[in-house]
């Protein structure tokens, strides 16, 4: 890997790992952006060339462990004293299924294996959101337009005010309440996310646009509810209420965990948002280097041990995930050091911290943004941005 002279000179005043809220990010020149993009491309190429048995063994091992935990969780429901253990096993199973397996497989991270059981086209997760709808809103909308205001619907999920540049409205006084409800009902929030209810309210989308989606959601909800709230409880006979409560608790624990990890990915203070105009070069298009730049500055990591990383589906390496969304997530820790080093050389912020710090930062933001901006704090009034049209139509 080579770096040009100009880029190595930029190593002044780097504040790696700090998350200062209001500073504007360091801008890179088009030449720097290009060199920056090339360095990241080189890492990507190296990993792709190295994919093989180890990655396959890893993900198959995780799948096996997840299925074992699931079976154990279901079986332990027959032993009332073991109820907490059953719930724990089932919760971990659902977390693994949704995060380290589901999220990553559906990104196509393991498509190269040619295994239908690990194919982005076929995988369906243990979650009420149908995988095809999730792939559209997540893989396409969120990962392509990450943190572009008005384009990335994951900024506040159409419910919350998570960025200063989202215009305040009295509705947002409920920000903390909405966030709490979204946490408790996270899988339902994810399922309904695709319906773009906020756009229906705004008149940008009609109810009939959603007709095709309703069917898929209902089918998936029916299957999930039948399994967790009818069949498995019924199979335990007189323990029906206990099993039902256990399954519901496991789903709740998964919801809370996933919500917290995911909110630490893009909302801690210091994470940048962008406007469409900011992303365009002189040709009106975003360069590959700027795309990487935006993914880097729009994401935040969480530090932790190996088990913690697995339980987050390696989304604790949100930065690496956003740079390389289709590389197997187990590779993110491996390249993180290099990414950090590149950031240091270019003087770019690499936002990371322990879970409690990132969560605290997100919580403060949720509360702070519930209130209107204080006048004296915004020296240059944020102009009403012309909201670019949402990509609401879906390819057939």
């Amino acid at each position, binding site marked *: 890997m080579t770096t040009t002279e100009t880029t190595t000179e930029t190593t002044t005043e780097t504040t790696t790992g700090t998350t200062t809220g209001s500073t504007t990010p360091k801008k890179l020149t088009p030449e720097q952006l290009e060199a920056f993009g090339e360095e990241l491309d080189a890492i990507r*190429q190296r990993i*792709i060339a190295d*994919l*093989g*048995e180890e*990655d*396959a*063994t890893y993900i198959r091992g995780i*799948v*096996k462990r997840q*299925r*074992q935990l699931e*079976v154990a969780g279901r079986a332990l429901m027959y032993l009332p004293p073991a109820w907490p253990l059953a719930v724990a096993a089932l919760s971990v199973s659902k977390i693994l299924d949704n995060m380290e397996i589901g999220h990553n497989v559906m*990104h*196509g991270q393991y*498509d*190269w*294996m*040619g*295994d239908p*059981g690990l*194919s*982005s*086209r076929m995988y*369906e*997760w*243990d979650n009420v959101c149908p995988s095809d709808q999730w*792939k*559209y809103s997540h*893989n*396409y909308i969120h*990962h*392509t337009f990450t943190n572009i205001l008005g384009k990335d619907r994951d900024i506040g999920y159409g419910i919350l005010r998570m960025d200063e540049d989202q215009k305040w409205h009295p509705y947002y006084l409920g920000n903390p309440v909405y966030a709490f409800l979204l946490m408790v009902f996270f899988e339902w929030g994810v399922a309904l996310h695709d319906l773009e209810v906020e756009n229906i309210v705004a008149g940008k989308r009609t109810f009939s646009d959603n007709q095709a989606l309703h069917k898929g959601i209902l089918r*998936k909800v029916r*299957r*999930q509810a*039948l*399994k967790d709230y009818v*069949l*498995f409880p019924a*199979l335990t006979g007189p323990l029906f209420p206990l099993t039902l409560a256990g399954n519901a608790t496991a789903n709740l624990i998964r919801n809370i965990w996933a919500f917290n990890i995911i909110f630490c990915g893009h909302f801690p203070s210091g994470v940048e948002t962008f406007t469409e105009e900011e992303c365009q070069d002189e040709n009106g298009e975003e360069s590959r280097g700027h*795309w990487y730049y935006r993914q880097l500055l729009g994401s935040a990591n969480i530090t932790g041990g190996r088990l913690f990383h697995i339980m987050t589906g390696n989304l604790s390496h949100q930065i690496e995930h956003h740079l390389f*969304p*289709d590389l197997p997530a187990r590779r993110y820790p491996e390249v993180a050091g290099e990414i950090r080093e590149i950031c240091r050389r270019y003087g770019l912020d690499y936002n990371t911290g322990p879970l409690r710090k990132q969560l605290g930062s997100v919580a403060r933001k949720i509360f702070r943004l519930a209130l209107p901006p204080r006048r004296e704090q915004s020296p240059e009034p944020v102009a009403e941005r012309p909201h670019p049209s949402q990509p609401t139509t879906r*390819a*057939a």
Partner: protein
Amino acid sequence: MTVAERILGSRALAALTSPHGVDRYLELVNPMWAATEVRATVVDVQRETDGAAAGAAPVATLTLQPTRTWRGHRAGQYVQVGVEVPGARRTTRCFSISSAESGRGEPFTITVRAHDEGLVSKFLVHEARPGLIVHLSQAEGEFTLTESPATPTNNRLLMISGGSGITPVMSQLRTLLRDGYDGHAGRKVTFLHYARSREDQIFGEELNGIAWQDNGVDVHLRYGDDVFSAEALARLVPGYRDTDTWACGPAPMMALVEEAYAGSPRLRTEFFKLGATAGTSGSAEGDVAFTRSGSSAPNNGATLLEQAEARGLEPEFGCRMGICFSCVSRKTEGTVRNVLTGEESSLPDEDVRICVSAPVGSCSVDL
């Protein structure tokens, strides 16, 4: 159906194992347990030829014991065989079944030539050992016998094959002899085969045995320069155009056979998909076919997505930069180059992201 099969295939179990399905759990316990998927254990590997003949690759026959989910096959059909080649990449190819018709869960054989460019065939011939688990489809294909060995007739059947194209017609011949009465095919069968050389002849011993017995089958084996010609066929089977014929072999031979039959509906053919010869990298030559829409036009070098859109097709897409996998489509033939990495791939029946895949030479995509 046994009780276990009934339970495994039940809707209740499907609901309990939703969204993954029963097989995703069973395979973790024993890869030979399956409710819907089909897998097989290799139970025997026999070398047919050693590949010593000039320009010939070795051939082996593999006996496969499938799971109970295998529904059997009709003589002449093929099966998709998926193996994990080194690098943990499951790769799938079609192989004609060479044994006589099989029933549910019954073992069968495939006979494979280790082509130089054939990743799976080389693996099966050189690396496969008893105990290896392979992934299967159900038997597929319409290149099958139209009549039953259960009833002797005075119909005449003609089977023409070249090289490893012998496998599906061998299955047909074996079926007629096994299921006919007293080891007789029950009709007149002419079995005409072209091999590169005597050493490269597959099933040579068995065919010689069949030739010597009174079973209604005439076996004609031709070698080397003695290639297919309409005149020779006319001497062997006068009025061959009005004879039910099954032909399978390499493309040059098949072209001659089709010419000889001049569009006669009595001719049934089977082609093997071979790795297409790749054009020069980055060039725009050959044709790009979108098979589902029936569109074929010269390759202009752009990505498959752009070429499809230029022809008025509307394939699904998302990011258009290779990250979201919305546009994944099946390339059935030809070579594509990943415009991001420059990596080329010529595997048939491969899923590609059409937004970052540009065809190199001719290419077919299921769109």
